[in-house]
């Protein structure tokens, strides 16, 4: 049960997949989050991500730990990007390797859902007419 947890400027998807692959795994499930080019029909020019990095790393480690406790998974990689990201660019990658696919799918879904709820990372959306911090207001 090993994990790779990182916050980086540029995501390398292959790094996450290479890290989790092992001969004992029957499969790798990967989630890649990318920048959508519109929000409610308004074109998005770019996103800006910032994090409270030391706490974000701790919270990402907790997610990996919880996944190891709940499912039979062997390795997990969680890598999140910060800084400016353009539409189509990768902002988060989660890779999970397990002996059987069910555990890998479940753990990967748990990891991305929980990351959105607990990891201190914020994004600002830039439109033609200004910028907003996503989900800040009700």
């Amino acid at each position, binding site marked *: 049960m090993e994990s790779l947890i990182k916050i980086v400027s540029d995501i390398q998807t292959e790094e996450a997949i290479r890290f989790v692959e092992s001969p004992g795994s029957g499969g790798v499930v990967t989630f890649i*989050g990318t920048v959508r080019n519109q929000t409610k029909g308004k074109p998005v020019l770019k996103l800006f*991500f*910032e*994090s*409270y990095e*030391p*706490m*974000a790393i*701790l919270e990402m480690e907790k997610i990996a730990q919880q996944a190891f406790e709940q499912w039979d998974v062997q390795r997990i990689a969680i890598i*999140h990007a910060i800084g400016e990201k353009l539409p189509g660019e990768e*902002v*988060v990658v989660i890779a999970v390797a397990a002996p059987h696919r069910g555990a890998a799918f479940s753990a990967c879904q748990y990891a*991305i859902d929980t*990351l*959105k*709820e*607990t*990891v*201190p*990372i*914020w*994004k*600002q959306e830039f439109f033609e007419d200004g910028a907003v*911090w*996503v*989900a*800040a*207001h*009700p």
Partner: protein
Amino acid sequence: MKIMFFGIAKELAGGATLEITEKPGTVGQFREWLIRQYPAMRELRKVMIAVNKTYATDEQTIADDDEIAVIPPLSGG
């Protein structure tokens, strides 16, 4: 005591860090101080407070050398 602000909270506070001499006592009292200082933070969907990089409850007491972070609604991923 050092306070860190992130995301929209950083904009509302006018900076990323602040050193204060007040001793808030508990996290709940710190929240009250925060709203008095920056009333616009009341409009946010949710504000969490982290003490030493861990989410804190309102009952938790704050020590002088604690690192306090104001965590506005998250939007990672």
